[in-house]
């Protein structure tokens, strides 16, 4: 039967020409709009390395030098104490499991970005081994443990990571799997030393599971250090934030409502005031909105819908005309015992052949397009070179996956476009159809 259908498609090549050309161009276009969405989707579904539920960041504000409400008698010591007091107020909430002070947006999807290079030794040579990494800093005074608060796990044991009280004084440092692998070629790096740009040695206390700072970016190295010194400055409300997590089973909406009503007003002290609570989830979506990622997704999906709608209309039109032209043929086949299903599958095979033939041509152009370095790229902030690359990100699987997705999308929409006129045509009684013969 297939041979028969191929012959039929070939015989109708003049009528098929336009739809074929449309499918080739629309297939190419669809591929180019699906490609960046594929990259963002792979990044999005890469495991985050932390928990999101019940995790919050509290930002506070400060009355500036010229603010009418500023109390000019407040001293630096009072401001330091005020930060301790705000942290205590959060820790004292019965719903809160743990809380700590973090610096410079050291939380997932934070706006600012802090990075550094760490070295494997202190040799002053140009080719000394180093890893450029993002750096989080937290304060472990009073039992602050970023790993517990964020739900990050030990890469080797899968368990919790404890932070000794004197970790800051001992220059202990915590590194991600990715960092350890790039620096030492293994994740078994506990006890090893890395050096900062001032040749200060830091001992690795634990290796934590790979951690994704930004939702739609790949994973890159992260190092977490401790700094218990609170520096007073006019910008400290932009430098320090309180991160915390809630106990399991706490109703988050009720907590936020209670917190803003009962606890937040008590944070007005030493020229500071409560600004806002941001859940990790809200922070993630806000960041993706601000840096235009959602816009890119929306735009590409709109363009993909456009291409698919055009293909749908093209297929409906083509097969409607074809069904009308082959009304007699359908009637004859029905009167000779062909089932509706049989006729439908014949037309579906015909449209599959059309789509496949067109997509093969599109693919030839697309291979050339991809070889010109035009594929969407897996990139991260500052084009960091030490990314974690999984199978889906490698060039060949990337091309293959986008091609398969495009082909399937084309096929499904073409089938729907074919089925509508074909089902209608097969409903006609054989006698009616044959009357025209």
């Amino acid at each position: 039967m297939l041979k028969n259908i191929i012959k039929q498609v070939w015989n109708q090549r003049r009528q098929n020409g336009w739809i074929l050309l449309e499918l080739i161009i629309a297939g190419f276009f669809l591929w180019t709009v699906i490609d960046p969405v594929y990259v963002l989707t792979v990044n999005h579904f890469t495991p985050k390395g932390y928990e999101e539920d019940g995790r919050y960041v509290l930002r506070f504000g400060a009355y500036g030098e010229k603010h009418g409400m500023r109390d000019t008698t407040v001293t630096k010591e009072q401001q330091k104490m005020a930060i301790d007091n705000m942290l205590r107020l959060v820790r004292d909430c019965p719903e809160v499991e743990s809380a700590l002070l973090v610096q410079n947006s050291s939380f997932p999807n934070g706006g600012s970005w802090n990075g550094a290079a760490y070295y494997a030794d202190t040799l002053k040579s140009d080719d000394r081994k180093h890893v450029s990494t993002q750096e989080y800093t937290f304060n472990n005074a009073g039992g602050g443990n970023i790993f517990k608060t964020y739900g990050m796990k030990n890469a080797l044991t899968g368990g919790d990571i404890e932070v000794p009280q004197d970790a800051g004084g001992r220059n202990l440092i915590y590194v991600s799997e990715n960092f350890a692998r790039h620096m030492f070629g293994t994740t078994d790096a506990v006890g090893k030393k890395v050096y900062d740009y001032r040749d200060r040695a830091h001992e690795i206390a634990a290796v934590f599971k790979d951690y994704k700072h930004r939702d739609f970016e790949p994973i890159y190295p992260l190092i977490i250090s401790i700094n218990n010194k609170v520096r007073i400055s006019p910008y400290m409300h932009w430098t320090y934030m309180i991160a915390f997590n809630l106990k399991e089973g706490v109703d988050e909406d009720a907590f936020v409502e209670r917190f803003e009503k009962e606890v937040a007003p008590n944070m007005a002290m030493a020229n500071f005031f409560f600004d806002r609570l941001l859940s990790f989830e809200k922070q993630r979506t806000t960041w993706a909105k601000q840096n235009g990622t959602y816009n890119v997704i929306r735009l590409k999906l709109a363009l993909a819908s456009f291409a698919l709608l055009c293909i749908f209309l093209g297929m409906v039109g083509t097969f409607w005309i074809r069904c009308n032209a082959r009304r007699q043929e359908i009637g004859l086949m029905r009167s000779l015992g062909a089932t509706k299903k049989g006729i439908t599958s014949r037309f579906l095979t015909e449209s599959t052949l059309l789509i496949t033939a067109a997509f093969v041509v599109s693919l030839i152009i697309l291979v050339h397009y991809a070889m010109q370095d035009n594929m969407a790229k897996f990139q991260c902030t500052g084009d960091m070179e030490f990314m974690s690359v999984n199978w889906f990100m490698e060039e060949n699987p990337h091309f293959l996956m986008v091609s398969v997705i495009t082909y399937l999308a084309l096929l499904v929409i073409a089938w729907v476009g074919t089925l509508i006129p074909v089902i209608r045509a097969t409903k006609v009684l054989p006698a009616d159809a044959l009357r025209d013969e």
Partner: protein
Amino acid sequence: MMKQNRLFTTIYVAGTGLSVAFTLILFIIYYVKFAPIYPEYNRNRTLVVNSMSAVNKENDNNYSCNSGVNARIFDLLKNLPHLDKMAAASNIGDFLGVTIVIPETNEQYSPIVQLVNQDFWEVFTFRFVSGHPFTEADVASTLPKAILSESMAKRIFAQTDVVGRFISLDGKDVQVCGVVKDASTATSVTMGEVYLPLYWGGLLSPEAHDTGLTGNIQLYLLSKDDDVEALRTEVQEVVKQHSLQDKYDNKMFGQPDTWWENYFRTSCAGEPDIASAIRGILYMLLAFLFIPALNLCGMISSRMDERMSELGVRKAYGATNRSIIHQVLTENLLLTLVGGLLGLALAYTLVCMGGELVLSIFNEDMYFNRDYPMAIHLEMLINLPLFLTVLGVCVLLNLISALVPTIVALRHPIIYSIHSKR
């Protein structure tokens, strides 16, 4: 004719509608960004400087790159022969975290703040509901004044006739000197809820800086006699001359920009890649036109097959190819125009329902865009260039989709055409 072949009509109209709708949405998005709309009616006469980089001539590592200039540049530019007005504004106001007390609820609200100079009100033609713009003395004065948007005034005072009354900004009493009709967040350069004099809050200063000409002020230069090119040359020359004597090498990377060029400038450290941005837009535009056009070509081609004998008879009685092409194009133009109207309605619906989601879909940086509803003004949707675009797209689609199949069909000899339908 439309009733005669309903399927053909439906698919043809839907295909045209889709093409017109997507092209129009693209048009509206860029129209709002580039064309003169309230209160930025002078966009065509305005040049923009909103980034500057400066390298210390003695030390390359001393380098700064900012989204604006500092007040030192005012003296350099103020006497340029082709400069009419020099508006200065700063979006740094958003970082001030200014709070305003809403009397009715006693709520502390953070309004969208614009820090502006006196010429801002000349370059941008706001409609004053009451009061007047800042004067030069207001901007220089330490006694702060404020201009409110109409909706902000209503929110605070429940009325707009509030000139002379005081608002509580950051715990200080500030006198209102004017109320203006709201600008939409679609015109983000001028949109604000509270407009304050440029140096309010002390973040910006009229004094000299040790960072070359870099700063956080954005300049909008209105040209005299619409001669933007002459003004552009003058500004570039004066900054170049200044850099020769300055400690810093001040680089503007091709600025000042015309309004539309400036939209593509995303970095202060290099020239914008306008060509690649335009290629991206053209790629979409071609897809919007050609993919549906091929569809329509296929439809018309099939229809030509059905009408082959009709064409044969007409040709046999002496009709020229030209008159037949004319007939087909006219018939199709009618259908295309119906599709155009459908596309127009679809585009309006999507823009009105989608609002910000649609109008900001090409924005890659929404840092200053807060959760504030984007107002769609009538002039963004109803204007002559938009209707001409609809008409242009319709004619173009009609030409692309009907001409080729008709010419192909007319190539057949009369006998073949008449014989095609026994």
